[in-house]
């Protein structure tokens, strides 16, 4: 333990609470409170109701939740496939080439996501690559945005992987494909699921690029929240936000369960 004295430990806890509560917990609690309110003029919300949740879990909002989940899962799977593939291929490159590859994959994160949204919009608005107006342009933009994280966490895991595993496997007569499938990917699984969780969380909350791209029949949940608060329906928006939060946490939990089951350590 870093801090040994009892007083010191209390002080550290106090600093933690002072920083954590107003910065992280309070805003979330406010959203939770607002989602049950009809008025909020005093210190606490008043006119408690569950009506916002009724509207936040059906019709348009339910549609948007499904849209968000499908977008996040599809984009994350695509990003994981592309990112992991690139990371595995990059591991065989020499240092300089690998650095170029890494830089290419970091690019979408380094560039503001509005710019990514705009560039995807411009690039895919004309035939033969006409995706504008379809759900695929949203999924594509999300994939571009989250691939960086998938690539980064998988390539970090690959550098930590002892080359002795694949070498022993090869000496035992396993072809490179067999080694990849039976040895390297299973050993990388914990970091693959961690990367999947990160990608899903990022995609579920993505707004700025999505705003520029989404077609009327493919409205993700963050867009709906933005629209609701924009027209002044703060309490409805809060309820939708809580649903988004819960859905994201549930999905992350499910993914981490898969990861824990597959993990061998």
């Amino acid at each position, binding site marked *: 333990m870093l801090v040994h004295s009892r007083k010191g430990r209390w002080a550290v806890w106090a600093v933690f609470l002072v920083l954590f509560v107003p910065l992280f917990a309070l805003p979330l609690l406010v959203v939770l409170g607002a989602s049950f309110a009809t008025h909020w003029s005093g210190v606490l919300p008043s006119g408690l109701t569950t009506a916002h949740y009724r509207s936040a879990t059906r019709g348009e909002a339910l549609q948007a939740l499904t849209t968000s989940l499908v977008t996040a899962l599809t984009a994350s799977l695509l990003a994981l496939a592309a990112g992991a593939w690139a990371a595995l291929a990059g591991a065989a490159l020499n240092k300089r080439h690998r650095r170029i590859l890494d830089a290419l994959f970091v690019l979408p994160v380094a560039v503001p996501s509005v710019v990514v949204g705009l560039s995807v919009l411009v690039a895919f608005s004309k035939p033969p690559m006409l995706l504008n107006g379809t759900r695929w342009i949203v999924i594509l933009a999300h994939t571009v945005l989250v691939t960086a994280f998938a690539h980064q966490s998988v390539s970090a895991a690959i550098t930590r992987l002892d080359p*002795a595993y694949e070498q022993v496997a090869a*000496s*035992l*007569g396993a072809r490179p494909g067999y*080694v990849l499938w*039976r040895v390297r990917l299973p050993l990388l699984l914990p970091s693959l699921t961690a990367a999947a969780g990160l990608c899903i969380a990022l995609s579920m909350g993505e707004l700025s690029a999505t705003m520029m791209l989404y077609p009327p029949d493919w409205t993700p949940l963050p867009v709906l929240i933005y629209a609701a608060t924009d027209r002044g329906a703060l309490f409805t928006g809060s309820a939708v936000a809580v649903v988004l939060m819960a859905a994201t946490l549930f999905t992350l939990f499910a993914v981490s369960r898969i990861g824990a089951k597959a993990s061998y350590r």
Partner: protein
Amino acid sequence: MGIRFDSVTVAYDGNVVLDSLDLTVEPGEVMALLGPSGSGKTTALRAVAGFVRPASGRVLLGDRDVTDLPPHRRGIGMVVQQYALFPHMRVHENVAFGLKARKTPKGEIRGRVAEALEMTGMAGYARRFPRELSGGQQQRVAIARALAIRPSVLLLDEPLSALDAQLRSGMLAELSRLHRELPGVSMLYVTHDQVEALTLADRIAVMDAARLQQCGTPRELYREPKSEFTASFVGGANLLPVTVVSGGVDFAGTELKADTRGAVAGARATLCVRPHLVGLGEGPNRIVGTVTEIQWRGATHRLYAEAGGHTLMADLRELKNPPALGDRVMLHFAPDDAVLLPAGVTHA
């Protein structure tokens, strides 16, 4: 099946790490590659396994030139220092890995896995995961995994280095037994530990600075080292800078009898004497020195004495009245226990 290195040179970025190695391992022989780190011994093993491609030269397994074959087509068993058991597979799955990868019929796999585990004394642990085993047990499983594919060549890369001393001697005996049970398997055993090499190997190839220094049976290397490096790395030795005179050598003004065949009078040379062949008191070849250090090692005393600007080591049977520091002592050795070597670094 034997292994042959045919002037194999390996270089990384122009840096030569193995310099035209010529070495033949006979079928069924245990060859130890012995040397300090950076001597090129592991590189030689990796060239056989196929993990490094020689810049020039050929590697042959039996009559087959495998220089350009990928590792998975060489049919070699390999055991590495850190075991590298697949952590997500149970022991029996680890041992079956090579057989499955080679598409061995299912019915046969079960028997072969059981046989390999039996041979290494791990039959009772088939259902365990590697993390549930001790280091020594993990290394046994790694050996079983390599033996399951019935390789005719087994590569062992510092297999005992991660084990503590007591386990190591047990595993050494175990490896000797395995070698007796598998007389057809050639083993290439890379180690920096001379005890392992002397115990296990039929022949030892001593490596230093990317080159093969000397290759021979343990006894040959011990009795007739050809260089100062071999003499000091295998067994440890007193290396005395001497000048050849008629019928012997001159060490710092003391004349010593020695076999000087092949040496010219007046030439500089190095006289190699093993510490345990040096005795205390009167004898044929006498050197007087001052005791600088004395260590009790249970059955023996290791005595360090300064003579003619050099430190002599003597391993003596436990002394009742060991000399004190600063005492003048007389040391001796038999003329035929000393080997005359070409002059080396000690003259510098």
